[in-house]
């Protein structure tokens, strides 16, 4: 079975706001433990409407694990919601 860890960590994120189809691209983030993770690929970005609040969900990877980052566009905060770094063989 898939080994996912569900979290709700407030994280610091470096993101680039540019042009194109995906104008917001998180580059790296720092977890409360101080560990820095460099994002190598954004798998998918999708919006998740919570009432009238819009949360942008970024599924990203650093090449070793998958992470789910959420950007709350009302509060302008980033949270790490999920980490999946191990898949049972």
């Amino acid at each position, binding site marked *: 079975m898939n080994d996912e860890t569900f979290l709700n960590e407030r994280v610091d994120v470096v993101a680039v706001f540019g042009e194109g189809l995906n104008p917001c691209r998180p580059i790296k983030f720092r977890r409360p433990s101080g560990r820095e993770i460099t994002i190598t690929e954004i798998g*998918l970005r999708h919006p998740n409407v919570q009432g009238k609040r819009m949360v942008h969900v970024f599924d990203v990877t650093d090449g070793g694990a998958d992470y789910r980052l959420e950007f709350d566009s009302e509060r302008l905060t980033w949270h790490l919601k999920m980490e999946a770094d191990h898949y049972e063989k």
Partner: protein
Amino acid sequence: MNEFNHERPLIMHIDLNSCFASVEQQARPMLRGRPVAIVNRRTDTTALVTASYEAKAMGVKVGMKLREAKILCPDIIGIESDPAKYRFVYHKLLDIMRDYSAHVTMKSIDEGVIDFHDSTAAIAGRDLADIGYEIKQRLKDEIGVWMRCNVGISTNRFLAKTAAGLHKPDGLDVITPENIQDVLGSLKLTDLTGIAGRNEKRLNSVGIFTPLQFLAADSVTLHKMVFASVVGDWWYKRLRGWEVDDVATDIKRVGRQYVLERFGLSYDQILQRLHHLCESVGSRMRGQHKAARGIYVYAKTLDRQYWHASHMSQLPFCHDQTIYLQAQQLFRDAPTRLREIGIHCYELQDDMDSQLSLFNDQIVRERQVTSAIDDINAQFGERTIHSADTLNTGTYVKQKIPFGSTRYL
């Protein structure tokens, strides 16, 4: 009309390959190339909603229990479905398709049809196969590199869908009068959409065992001997590329079902889950501006028995409490040892204020309260306000992927 339709093929069917599994593999690169199964609940007894091509290659099939899939494919990774993600991909696909024609119909969350009749001169002048390849590329550019789709092109919806199923994954095929014999010759009867179980038996009963024999059958045989109705004529035309399926389907019923999260729940706990389903059905019904007159409640037991009860009211209803009170009343006769419950409302009609008596204060008040609750839930999120009775049920009864209908996406 015994001739094939020789007009230019202008119907394109697009089908995302193993949609939910592909979306998860797109979102989570570590899953790519691995056998993945999408499930609605993290238990071994849950049925697979979708499996990735890697899992399918190991014999895993949709509908199979996760436990069975693990026997065939011990490395399979079960992922809980994430409807918001799939809804996003659905809307991206819809946006792409609408760039090519104003006549786009989504058949379900992962497939749709573009009708190129009446499209602009710039589009009409292009080869549809080129447009098909362009859409494939745009899926990769605008959603992600792991996204693939099948494209089928023909003169009607049925043959376009058949074409889309010929070379999975990532195929593109065109069915024309010139190649239809070859195409049908490579298929089984049950490969044809709409031919399964009963229809297959009907065809077999008159000696039709292959799609080519089906194609060779005359319309009188299909009408009188096989289908005993106009359905036979439709099949005759469908197989020859004439359009018979371009019909808007009206919403007939609104319902929800729920497989109990564990066995041995008390009667009151089951009623709470039924209440939750009623609130969900009421919300969906009001979202479609409909009211119902009929209510149908069913249950399946651990011994695979099916129980149901229904009631038809004189006045239409759409409020949660009205739905629940009726469902609760019907549910009194339900058996014990349940594994699944469900409810649906039918005999739908447009919900209009005029249908209510102006002198019935209670109905008017109920309507105002429900309307206020719907407004609050729309602003602050689903189930911000709901009955206290269903306070704890949200953990279990979650919103799942709506198959077969795109009304709630």
